[in-house]
């Protein structure tokens, strides 16, 4: 039994979420942007688990499992794209890909 409320948990989750959001916005390195997206996904899962624990239901944990699956698939595809990006541009600067080729 721990004496914290759902508010505390949600505030922790939102602080972590906004840390990730700031990371996506301020970094130029595409790898750091992907890691920041991971932080944001983790924070969203944290909020789900807190809400599930508040109601004493398993649904929040199941939602976290789905977020975990999505994160795994997203990381696999994202890292493959980063490898291609690096082979093409020889840099991880996201500004290198700022114009479309069409």
């Amino acid at each position, binding site marked *: 039994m*721990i004496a914290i409320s759902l508010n*505390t948990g949600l*505030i922790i989750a*939102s602080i972590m979420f906004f840390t990730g959001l700031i990371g996506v916005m*301020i970094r130029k390195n595409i790898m750091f942007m992907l890691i920041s997206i991971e932080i944001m996904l983790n924070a969203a899962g944290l909020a789900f688990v*807190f809400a599930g624990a508040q109601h*004493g239901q398993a649904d929040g944990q199941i939602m976290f499992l789905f977020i975990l*699956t999505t994160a795994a698939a997203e990381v*696999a595809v994202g*890292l493959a794209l980063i490898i291609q990006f690096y082979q093409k541009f020889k840099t991880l600067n996201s500004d290198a890909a700022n114009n479309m080729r069409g």
Partner: protein
Amino acid sequence: MTILFYIAALIAIVASIMVVTRTNIIHALLYMVISLLATAVMFFLIGAPFIAAMEIIIYAGAIMVLFVFVVMMLNLGKQAVEQEKRWLSTEGWYFPSLLSFILLLEIGYLIVSGQTAPFNGRQIPPAEVGKELYSTYLIGVELAAILLMAGIIGAYHLARRKKYVVHRFLKTEGAEQ
């Protein structure tokens, strides 16, 4: 128990901030692992032991290791760290941070202005999660399987190196023979 929770939350937040502000990517990944471990401690304390184990095994164990492997493959050197330092020292970062901080304050205000009861402290055992997962959310599990399959195929297709076929006089670029 409560103080343990707050310490874990503080470590998670500080480690996340360190991830965002590092210049060396391996250091950032190690801080990310710390953040995930602290999150797992929080999960354990609020009565979700199964999710705590999943967080460590899949997030810290599999996804972060995947990141580390890709960083090793890219083989970034010292000049990448220097470049990161230059990018972070330009003042392009504080306006986005300010805007996000205002949004965070708004969300914090909205959360604080509503009242909720403290956690009831009931531990939800893995068996309950599993039963719910394979009855109510069965369609979700199957969709997740399809998503992972698509992810694997997509990652293989995207990361494949293009073959360069060099003839005597002309160089052609082809994906496969």
